[in-house]
């Protein structure tokens, strides 16, 4: 069970309180009735489904009930960032640079991959 930082509750909460709501930053046209078939297809049917960072919507449905946005790595499940609905889409390259390689936990990798300092036995085996 993941921990998800709710930007409205300002803390991490257990995943059980949340519900995923699909890809984010897909704006509904203010003049949708006049939209072309192609544009409507893009809006309604086509999703990016990336291997890597996805921008997606979540709802803290069993919490503050707010919808918000998240950038999540679909490979590691790591949330790079969550932000309030209506806030601009963050810069993906910058997020990736901040995220680092091996980070399933909510902690920067440079703090994470510290190898234990104490020495191991070097006595040989057969």
């Amino acid at each position, binding site marked *: 069970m993941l921990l998800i930082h709710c930007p409205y509750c300002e803390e991490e909460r257990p995943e059980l309180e949340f519900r995923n709501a699909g890809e984010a930053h897909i704006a509904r046209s203010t003049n949708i009735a006049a939209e072309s078939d192609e544009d409507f297809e893009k809006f309604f049917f086509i999703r990016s489904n990336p291997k890597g960072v996805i921008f997606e919507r979540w709802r803290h449905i069993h919490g503050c009930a707010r*919808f918000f946005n998240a950038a999540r790595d679909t490979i590691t499940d790591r949330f790079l960032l969550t932000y309030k609905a*209506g806030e601009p889409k963050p810069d993906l390259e910058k997020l990736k640079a901040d995220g680092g390689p091996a980070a399933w936990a909510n902690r920067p990798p440079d703090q994470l991959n510290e190898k234990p300092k*104490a020495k191991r*036995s070097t*006595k040989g*085996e*057969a």
Partner: protein
Amino acid sequence: MAGSYRISGQGRLTPAKTARFTFDGKSMTGLAGDTVASALLANGVHLVGRSFKYHRPRGILSAGAEEPNALVTVSRDAARKTPNVRATVQELYDGLTVASQNRWPSLSFDVGAVNDIASPMFSAGFYYKTFMWPKAAWHKFYEPNIRAAAGLGVAPDQPDPDHYSALYAHCEVLVLGGGAAGLAAALAAAETGVRVIICDEQAEFGGALRYEKGAVIDGQDGWSWAQDVVAKLAAMDNVTVLSRTTAFGYYAQNFVGLVERVTDHLARPGRDEPRERLWQVRAKRVVIATGAIERHMVFANNDRPGVMLASAARTFLNHYGVVVGRQIGVYTANDSAYAAAIDLKKAGVGVAAVVDLRDNPSGPLVDEARALGIEVNHGRAVTSVNGSQRIKSMTVQAKGGGAERTIAVDALLMSAGWTPSVHMFSQSRGKVAFDDATKRFLPGTYAQDCVSVGACNGFDSLEDTVAQALEAGANAARDAGAKSSKGVTLKVEASEGWTGGMLGSGPGAGAGTTVKAFVDFQNDVTAKDIRQAVHEGMRSIEHVKRFTTNGMATDQGKTSNMHGLAIAAEALNKDIPAVGLTTFRAPYTPVTFGAIVNHARHGLFDPTRKTPTHSWAESHGAVFEDVGQWKRAWYFPRAGEDMHQAVDRECVTVRKSAGLFDASTLGKIEVVGPDAARFMELLYTNPWEKLEVGRCRYGIMLREDGFIYDDGVVGRLAQDRFHVTTTTGGAARVMNHMEDYLQTEFPDLDVWLTSVSEQWAVIAVQGPNSRDIIEPLVEGIDMSDEAMPHMSVREGMICGVPTRLFRMSFTGDRGFEVNVPADYGRAVWEALWAEGQKHGACAYGTEAMHVLRAEKGYIIVGQDTDGTVTPNDAGLDWAVGKKKTDFVGIRGMTRPDLVAKGRKQLVGLKTKDPRTVLEEGAQIVENPKQAIPMKMIGHVTSSYWSANCDRSIAMGLVLGGRDRIGETLYVPMPDGVIEVEVTGTVFFDEKGDRLNG
């Protein structure tokens, strides 16, 4: 003594505390604190089971959770029967009943053992090769016979009467494993004041100190030190100490699953005690201190009872006071086995010889063994043991071959070295790295906030282990936010240092040999099988694993993985890391379904929702149906009535007089704010701005794709306040759908949504007499047709409590829905019932409700629609605001496929024989004489017997349906074709006069 192999003055158990138990019906005595394994060994029993595939006699290999062989069935009573319990884990209690498995008719004479002789048939890949053909053999031979012959224990055939508990727990530092490393880390973390949880799978903490005799920590014998530390930790408010608790799964963000065995060791568990407790722990930092597991040697017949791990024999002696034989042999490539030989020798057991594969073993343990007069053979190997149900001797040969020497032994202790337990680390998604110098996989790249300490991190000396663990514990606490840092130091004054080890098959079991040298005992995988897998083209260890099933048994290859890997690497002529390690997956050891399910059984499996008038319906004989989580009154049979008769009567009574119906389960949403009407315009197809206060409208909600999502009657209570109803099943998702649009697409609208589904009990009173029933109870509402026409809503009082009174109908007759605050629901229902009795009204259930609405062609979303039905398909074009420029679904509705000709449309269906009731879901065809598969042009969505129409009625979705009205179509059924006429959807009172009747 409890058992003739129990040695006085050895071990830590109390001789006076005996416990009786039975094994395969034979009564035996053990001691409190014994495991089943130690108690059996104390009674001289080595043969405890038969193997999975070959039915070979098997004994006890280990003294812990890694045990692959000694699997038994433990039972308290007929229902409390647990198969595949590791005898080395199950604690003894007085009255325990143990049975061996996978044997018939008895353990010592097992018919299935013929599989051992026929073993060339069952070699690696047997299943994949054999079960291919002929097809018929599946049912006749493979399933009933071969599968029955293989396998382990038998699952109980009664429901589990025990209860299981669970809880979520949070801590700063979670320590997995309670050996010296885990205890030191926990102590260092605990002293800072942060919350610490430490767990260990054993009954007592101490880990390897259970058998390692010489360790001295802080001036104390290692074991005593461990017990003192545990007592100290347990006394601290910030520490939770969990013994008999296995960490079985390590999930995202330091979420770790532990299962605590609460009563399995108790003779008489308390009534309120759960059998097991699932701990779902979220830790800021995890310290992994899971130790190492000793490997066996791979040689011919290494599975015979009496052959066991050296550390196991040492545990049985030093902890349980049990010797595993009178004359033992030792076969090793590692120092630790010497310690076992030394301890046994000192306890008075004959040690026939130590056979060391290494050419020049040296060091204090080797010297001590020699000094004790133990014969040490180096550069030699045990190539086989003799004796089937218990070994009698071992065959020794020089590594390179040559003359064989047979040495009489009744037990053989072996050690091929130690495999660090990186299971938890690997489950945390950490990447292991191969340490070439010591030929083992160790924690490499960490993926989570955890640290490995001690033997699981490749530390061989107790001194280094304790020092690192103290530091890791303190660091974990600090990183998790500890404010204070109280330094803890521990002095390790004495310990054993072990070196050595080997991987793969030993002499006599190498390439080209066909002996049964077992790698995986539980799945009966031999060294030869692994080589065969490579020979047959498996290159990846993942393929070798699946082809041979090596490491796939319930012990998940704790003893076998490294040997299997080494043999495969050798056969492939590759380095071990190039072949790769298989992935460790949860659970570390088997977890019961009970623990996983825990509270979610019986009434807590899923919530059962009941309306405020449920108890009334119950006491009036209602039969209930499940509608989602709700219990709804289905029909109210009177004495002697079957369902059909009851529903007929209810339907007729409603149209003749009136009926009361509990509609409380409908979803209800209060839409409040100056932009309420604007919001409603956007969410529903209908126009709302001009709906007058006090009036209602039937609304249709679409998804963006133009298909019907939900429907319901909406009342306008004030300029800025709507009372919206949804379908029962749609309540939650409609609320979510509306919130979604409000928050993310139309956030500028000044409007709020509040679910009031459960604030209001809803009593539908329908039928010509409905007004007469309600009116006497109502205050402040003029219910005349002029003042309160069809589709209007009024607020006032009923029975002295507030009501929102809707005039609306789902029957086509005059009708009302009385909303009252839920806690008044039952009282108001009873008052209406009393009034209704004066008019001959009845209570009706969901079935009659369905029939009555179908008579009028009113649709039920989700029954007559299926997520691909547009308003036009359903004949509801009239409910779509033609002048509107925006609402959810407006664009989707005009997609080419949705406006094309030839869509399925909702129509009425009348069977030519009015007595025939169609089956819902039945397919409709144009020509019943066509070849199968026929072209299906639609299906029946609703179908009932209508007593009011005195015939069957049905609706269906039919291709181009509305153009076919008057046509005859066909419904082919298994027992004949039914002719139907396509009609309009209204079967009763087509003009709709009765709404005001």
